[in-house]
């Protein structure tokens, strides 16, 4: 055990968006700040480096955002996705503060771009980072280092010792050594536990071993588990995670955004037995996108297979892996490891149930549906007839977990009803305090930015 020196005023655990917002804010308040980031430098930035946008309230045009997006509308959108499972006070705080975040982000080096061609519907509500989340993370590291923030990479925190409502010291490992520091204030911003598949499997059952993790392999919930064990107040449900259906060939970790598949509405989806199991035309992106993660997770071996034909190939965003292609359905089935006869039968049955397709409209709910089969396809139901045929495999891709640390409006953690006097949490690790279930695009970065800044400010005030 070595004592790291010099001792910082504030230790920030994690190196993603929330951690950086906290570190910058604390350093600007005059504190000596140390960031402990588990990942090596090329992988710094956690899940934040995979993000693309930030959801922001605004009363008039603001930066890249058009029109206005009011607190009430934002809250209503959040209520819709969470089914009311949210702490309204904290939610309003996050929403209201998001408006001042955008100029703050710009002032600290983040650059935004005009909204992407494919996602115009988000131009009003979401600001897109130029170069994506890694660009944002890079800008924050530059800013933080210019403010004197010290960054340690490959520094994985293993334990926070809590005595009498106070964190007395932190242990972390680096270069095979265990080091101990005793900062005055501690900010935890180390994300969720989704990269620990054993933990996922304990919560979800063994099926979770087949899940792919869309983000960083470093968010293993080590600090979260350590704090929960010491009775720090928890929030959220361990069995809940945000999962989407992604390309089954994606890497186990860190596949990020490119592994998403947008072709489901124009397809039929079968399981490994060649049978359909859900209405592929239920809703438009992004709602549909999110439900399919769970649907696939419930199928044998946690896999699904999307089947489309030539006429649908160009209707969705290009995907990172080319589709599997064959001239007949039987060949396609063989190539994909599906029973050929069953697949042909399933497609024939589906095709027979399709009716008038003249109203087909790829970008809206068009009501072009099947009759007489279960499950039905309620929109975009066109027979799969035109060779070549294409297929993609689907797996469940976990975005984040909901179990986390409960915080108050000052981002402070507590044990029972008493605050831990020098412990704050920000970002995904406390997002469950606001987001009980569901997900609102761009809200993760909002929570991280808002609560990162609050945590940084409070931690600095405590240290001074």
């Amino acid at each position: 055990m070595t004592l790291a020196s010099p001792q910082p005023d504030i230790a920030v655990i994690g190196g993603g968006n929330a951690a950086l917002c906290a570190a910058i804010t604390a350093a600007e308040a005059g504190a000596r700040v140390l960031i402990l980031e588990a990942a090596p430098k090329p992988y710094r930035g956690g899940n934040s480096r995979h993000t693309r946008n930030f959801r922001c309230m605004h009363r008039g045009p603001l930066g890249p955002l058009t029109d206005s997006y009011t607190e009430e509308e934002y809250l209503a959108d959040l209520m819709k996705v969470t089914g009311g499972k949210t702490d309204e006070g904290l939610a309003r705080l996050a929403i209201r503060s998001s408006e001042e975040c955008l100029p703050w982000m710009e002032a600290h080096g983040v650059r935004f771009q005009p909204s992407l061609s494919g996602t115009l519907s988000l131009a009003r509500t979401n600001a897109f980072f130029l170069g994506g989340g890694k660009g944002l993370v890079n800008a924050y590291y530059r800013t933080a280092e210019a403010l004197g923030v010290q960054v340690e990479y490959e520094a994985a925190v293993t334990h926070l010792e809590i005595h009498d409502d106070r964190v007395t010291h932190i242990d972390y490992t680096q270069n095979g050594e265990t080091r101990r520091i005793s900062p005055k204030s501690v900010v935890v911003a180390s994300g969720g536990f989704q990269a620990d598949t054993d933990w996922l499997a304990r919560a979800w059952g063994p099926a979770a071993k087949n899940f792919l993790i869309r983000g960083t392999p470093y968010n293993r919930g080590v600090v979260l588990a350590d704090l929960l064990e010491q009775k720090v107040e928890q929030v959220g449900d361990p069995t809940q995670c945000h999962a989407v259906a992604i390309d089954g060939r994606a890497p186990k970790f860190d596949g990020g955004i490119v592994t998403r598949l947008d072709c489901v509405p124009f397809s039929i989806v079968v399981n490994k037995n060649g049978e359909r199991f859900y209405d592929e035309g239920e809703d438009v992106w992004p709602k549909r996108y999110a439900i399919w993660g769970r649907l696939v997770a419930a199928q044998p071996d946690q896999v699904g297979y999307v089947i489309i034909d030539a006429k649908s190939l160009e209707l969705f965003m290009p995907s990172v892996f080319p589709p599997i292609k064959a001239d007949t359905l039987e060949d396609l089935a063989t190539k994909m490891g599906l029973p050929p006869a069953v697949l042909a039968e399933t497609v024939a049955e589906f095709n027979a149930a399709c009716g008038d397709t003249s109203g087909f409209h790829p970008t809206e709910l068009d009501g072009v549906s099947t009759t007489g089969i279960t499950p039905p396809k309620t929109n975009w139901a066109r027979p799969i007839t035109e060779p070549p045929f294409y297929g993609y495999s689907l797996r469940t891709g976990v975005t984040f977990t909901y179990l986390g640390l409960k915080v108050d409006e000052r981002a402070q953690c507590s044990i029972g009803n008493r605050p831990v006097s020098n412990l704050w949490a920000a970002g995904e690790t406390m997002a469950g305090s606001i987001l009980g279930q569901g997900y609102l695009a761009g809200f993760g970065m909002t929570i991280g930015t808002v609560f990162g800044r609050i945590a940084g400010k409070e931690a600095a005030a405590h240290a001074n």
Partner: protein
Amino acid sequence: MQTEFLEEARRQAEICNACRYCEGYCSVFPALHAERAFSDGDLTQLANLCHNCRGCYYACQYTAPHEFALNLPQALANVRQDSWEEFAFPRAAGQAFQKSGLRIALATVLGFALLIWAMLSLASAGGEGFYAVLAHNTMVAIFLPAFLFPLLSLAISLRRYWRAVGAGPLRFSDLRGGFAAAANMRNLNGGHGDGCNFEDEDRFSQGRRFAHQAVMYGFLLCFAATSVATLMHYLLDLRAPYPLWSLPKLLGLSGGLLLTLGCIEMIRLKLRADPELGASGATSGEFGFVALLGFVGLSGLALYGLGQTPLMPAMLALHLGAVLAFFLLTPFSKMAHGFYRLAALTADAQKKREVAR
């Protein structure tokens, strides 16, 4: 063209097309997003739209050690470099220069300098100033072909380029679009006005943009100085040497300074930049070119400074040798990139017009 370069660029372009995070950085990405599959010609066009600012590399979540191992600046630089070799006329000259540009530049300069030196010593021309050592007509006889050959060569190359990328008949509005994009150097500002990531990892800076600007305007000023002097010579019968407050001198001096300093800064930036993000095996060609260009400027300034001393004939030979080498090597050196970029931007403008229709 080398298929492994094209394959690698295609693989990476497909990943970018599924990601699209870098859309705002430069004109490569909007052009890329317009396709679903990439032909060799598409990749050549994308590669020539890229100016290696490296913004997309540092912003990419898929760079090595990630298994996708994205390095788009290098993938495009390799295709670009390769395309220049492919389109060069004569082809062998292009290949040679990419491989050993520094040596070729040096050898050419010295060769020409010796040649001119020999001519100087053989004939005393009986003029004034420089013309006392080299007759004006001799100079024209040497430089006119050296000026016309590169133009012809470049014209052939650009025609090859135009065909390879599958661009249609040229319209005036396309040209206007291409020149407009080139003139305001829109792409050099990084899409956000902070510049590029050339010298110090992910830090944005205007360094390369300013250095590039200095080189370009320095070159244009020198070119203008020569042109003005030629006009004065033929139309007004005003012969060199010109006084300090004359147009050729003012243009030449300011241009020479800008050119020399710009090239020095370019070399400094290149030395600081990560070579892994540029074309593999083209370092010699790139340094050779910048060094040659800088030497044209520097020897011009030296000639001016030493014009009244016994060193003048030697300096004259060196400077003229450098200028001659520069012109003759233009189609094969990095100088050609300006022409290809203009062609790429023009083809891009044409594509946009067709899409808009």
